[in-house]
């Protein structure tokens, strides 16, 4: 019977090894999946950061200010990655261009209020960027 114990022991080790291998494989696959998900997230973060953390936003905001008639810029203040601006007497063409440019900028639009006064547009803009 002692000899059979050797055989039983060997079979027990084999069964253990099968479960151990299965567990290792499962951990390996799980780890690969986690890494793949993390890599995808990192790639997405990279893309989002690239578009939302653009150092040229300040320059592009200044460019907007430049094409607006001086008398239309009531206020234009940039502080700590935040813009507060107020424009008056904008003709529809300039108004449309302003909307188009702001909409194309990667900024967080906190407030965009506009109304028509004497067939001209008044705009209050507040936005921030990363």
């Amino acid at each position, binding site marked *: *019977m002692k*000899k*059979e114990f*050797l*055989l039983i*022991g*060997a*079979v027990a*080790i*084999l069964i*253990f*090894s*099968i479960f*151990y*291998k299965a*567990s*290792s*494989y499962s*951990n*390996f696959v799980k*780890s*690969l999946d986690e*890494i793949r998900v*993390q*890599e995808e*997230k*990192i790639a*997405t*973060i*990279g893309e*989002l*950061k690239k*578009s*939302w953390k653009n150092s040229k936003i300040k320059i592009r905001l200044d460019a907007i200010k430049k094409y607006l008639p001086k008398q239309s810029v009531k206020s234009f203040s940039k502080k700590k990655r935040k813009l507060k601006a107020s424009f008056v007497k904008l003709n529809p063409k300039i108004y449309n261009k302003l*909307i188009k440019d702001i*909409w194309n900028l*990667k*900024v*967080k*639009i*906190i*407030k*965009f*209020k*506009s*109304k*028509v006064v004497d067939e001209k547009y008044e705009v209050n803009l507040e936005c921030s960027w*990363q």
Partner: protein
Amino acid sequence: MKSLNLQKSFNIILSPEFYWVKKKKLPVKFAFQAKKYAKALFEGFLPNDEYNYIVSKENEEFIFIAFSEKQIVNFMKTINIKAEQIGKIYFAQFENKFFKTPIYLDEENALIEIDKIATILKVGFISDKITLYPANENYKPTGLSTRISSKSFFTQMQIYILSGLILFFALLNFVEAWGYGIQTEIKEIEFEEFVKKTGLPNSTYQLKNIYQKYDTLDKTERNKRDVSLIIIKSIMKHKGEITMFNLEKKKLLLMIKVNPKTKNGVKIKSQLSKEKFIKKMTVNKDIMVIRANI
């Protein structure tokens, strides 16, 4: 006894020197209950050894048989018989038909029944009037029987080979599992290096936070722009005039100058009312007010 050269397995009938028998009345009903008393019953009567016990009920009494497997196996070895070859074990005491006439065990010993007890006697002590016969080889035993518990289905060599093979496969599994472990570690190290290069934190929690921050910002801002552009395009297409456009937080309020009864006014209304983000649309004379949620 002569050495035997048998290859097959077979049943054996034990002669009395290999077992001890006792009969006893006990206050229990079944044999398995009586078996608990077997060891105590033989205590002090048997030579020092390990014993197996068989119990059977006969009328009101229990029959107890004690025998040493080791002794039987050792004896079998001396006559060249392996334990693996032993099938069932029977006891001469319960096979009286086997020696209804006295039989030769070997040249010196004979098995005879004295007072209904199977007994071994030296041939020289048996009267000449009693004729001894050789054992009937075709006899089929019918009495109490048991099996050798240490009987093996495999030879020692077979067990070693089989165990070796099994352990070899187990080793292969361990090596493969170890390989998976190493590959996991390599992938993790490669990933850590990749993260370092990006300048992002290594912690999953921090990464998740950064991802959520940018993802929410991106989705919300895209939505603001998409929703307002859909509304503006619809208004412009049907020659409406925006008199007020307020976008604050996640709410959009528009006032349009358009006659709702005209074809354009109807089209703007019907087109925008299909959109899920439109919360409310009201018309007052030639002013249409649109409220939308981003």
